[in-house]
């Protein structure tokens, strides 16, 4: 059953297009993330779902019901805000009870459900404290309890963790995920923090410049980006994106990248070739080769034919791994980032040889930015979400 469906949603503020033709389908009990940089339209989308912003065009359905013209209180949605938005001058318990109280729920029922929430979120000790005396993490817990207490059809989380300390962030992240699954509530998380989205969400919708660029599972967004925008935004350190030309030899694809000596040919394997062939892609254009830093390995077998020579100009030890910033031999500009085992010892200025893992390479069309091999199709190319 569909939890939420957004259909060709558009939001304009005067001449500014904030949300451009966004369509999404969210399964019941699923948690999805709207991920993107600030100003990408994710918060506007969320506010339209909550009913805090008017919809310019398109439709929103919650559990099959069109809610465009319903007031926030009639939509059966609950929201957790970035700034907690608790009710001052009320205690923790009163805050949690508020949504039930305004709905005229019976007193005994309110007491029971608030009690459950206090227990579930371990807020029993501070039930009668004033909310402004609590820490940020506790305040956000109260806000979450307040949102969940009335068992909404849809839970909206607007950057819920962005004001918290790092360790509280991780703790609350786990708690939110656990609560959401325990209560089996459909949820939408808005965040600019990709770690949060990757850790929490069943599926991620990557937004930029008012549009959704990819809507897929965390691993698909990470490993099979639909276009260069997604590839560049998701992942830390970011994916290497190398301008290249393509050549097919013996049903294998070779990408020529770099400027030194006419560039180096990189073997990207046969599966990429098959994919390009299946789509009849003309190989004469400009392309971009995308490869994640962790899919680059240092080659020590001396096989010159399959490895690339590069010069280390910066190396950073990250504990489990070592981050290498590589330049072309003799060059000074950053070319490729690689994540290698931290035992691998290297000094700045060393020349090393690296290989890439062709199974994880993604080829983007240089002009449109779309993935032509190794990525997923963009949402606009996908068939319309099922309307059965």
């Amino acid at each position: 059953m569909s939890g939420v469906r957004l259909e060709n949603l558009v939001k304009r503020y005067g001449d500014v297009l904030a949300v451009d033709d966004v369509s999404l389908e969210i399964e019941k009990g699923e948690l999805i993330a709207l991920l993107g940089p600030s100003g990408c339209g994710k918060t506007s989308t969320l506010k339209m779902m909550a009913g805090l912003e008017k919809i310019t065009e398109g439709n929103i359905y919650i559990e099959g019901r069109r809610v465009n013209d319903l007031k926030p209180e009639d939509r059966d949605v609950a929201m957790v805000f970035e700034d907690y938005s608790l009710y001052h001058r009320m205690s923790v318990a009163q805050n949690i009870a508020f949504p039930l109280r305004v709905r005229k729920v019976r007193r005994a029922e309110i007491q029971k459900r608030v009690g459950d929430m206090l227990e579930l979120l371990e807020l029993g000790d501070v039930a009668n404290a004033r909310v402004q005396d609590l820490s940020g993490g506790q305040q956000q817990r109260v806000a979450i309890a307040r949102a969940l207490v009335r068992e909404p059809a849809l839970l909206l989380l607007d950057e819920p963790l962005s004001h918290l300390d790092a360790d509280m962030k991780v703790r609350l992240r786990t708690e939110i995920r656990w609560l959401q699954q325990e209560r089996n509530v459909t949820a939408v998380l808005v965040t600019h923090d990709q770690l949060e989205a990757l850790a929490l969400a069943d599926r991620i919708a990557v937004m930029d410049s008012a549009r959704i660029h990819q809507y897929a599972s965390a691993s698909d967004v990470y490993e099979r980006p639909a276009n260069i925008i997604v590839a560049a935004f998701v992942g830390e350190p970011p994916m290497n994106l190398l301008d290249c030309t393509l050549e097919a030899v013996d049903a294998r694809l070779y990408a020529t990248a770099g400027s030194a000596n006419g560039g180096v040919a990189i073997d990207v394997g046969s599966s990429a070739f098959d994919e390009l062939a299946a789509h009849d892609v003309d190989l004469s254009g400009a392309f971009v080769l995308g490869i994640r830093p962790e899919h680059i390995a240092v080659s020590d077998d001396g096989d010159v034919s399959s490895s690339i020579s590069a010069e280390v100009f910066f190396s950073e030890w990250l504990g489990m791994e070592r981050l290498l910033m590589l330049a072309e031999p003799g060059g000074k500009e950053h070319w490729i980032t690689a994540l290698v085992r931290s035992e691998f010892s290297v000094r700045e200025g060393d020349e090393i040889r690296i290989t890439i893992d062709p199974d994880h390479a993604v080829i983007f069309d240089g002009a449109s930015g779309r993935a032509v091999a190794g990525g997923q199709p963009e949402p606009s190319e996908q068939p319309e979400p099922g309307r059965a």
Partner: protein
Amino acid sequence: MIEDARPRKILRTLGLIAIVIAFVFPVYWLLSFSFKPERLFFDLPPVWTFDPIVTEWVNTFRTLKLWETIINSIIVAGGSTLLTILVGTPASYSLARLRVRGKTDIMLFIIASRMAPAVALIIPFFLIYQFLDLLDSHIGLIFAYSTFNMALYVWLLTVMTRELPADLEGVAEADGYHPFQVFLRIGLPLMRPSIIAVGVLAFIFAWNEFPFALLLGGRTTETLPVVAARSLSAGGVEWARLAVISTVMVIPVAVMVFFLHKQIVRGLSMGAVRG
């Protein structure tokens, strides 16, 4: 919040205009009597349109020597304002910025003296002034006005000064300025806008004051409210004259309200509103 529709804003504006008219029209009606020919006063129904005349203005100024009254009002209100500013400003600076023991108690004492009912104070004042020969003197009134103005001024200026950034004073002190020099060179210029705003408020209160002026003043110190009240009692009411005096009283207040209405709202609420 959900965006607010323009038509609603227009509707609200019209509503507010109606309210403003309801509150300001009576003032206009009063003032219009100072230009209205006397024979039209008692017409039924009340007359709205007429050719304005200034006869009553000329009469009032001549027979009542209204200029002298105006000067009395200016001396008393101005003097009270000046005294309040001179004495109150250093106190406010100290309470807002310096370390003073018992600050809360001092502030409580100050706001308590704002509460005293004037008429209750007038009894001892009257006898003390009689003894000191201060009845019917400008200086006596100026001092008496401190009962309400000093508390108002010190309280408000302290609240407002506390909100000003203190960085500059810290820097000056670190540079080796004596605290007194910091007050004169840094504090005072910083406080100037607040001093003007609260000073104006003190002036309005003194300008409008009635019981002290009535009971401690006399023939040589009559202020405008006293002359207005006197025009009521003696042998029937002089309506046109009342209107003229009222208009004279209203003019300076109107000018100040126009320029400083936010500070005045703040002042009337003893600083509780950020205007």
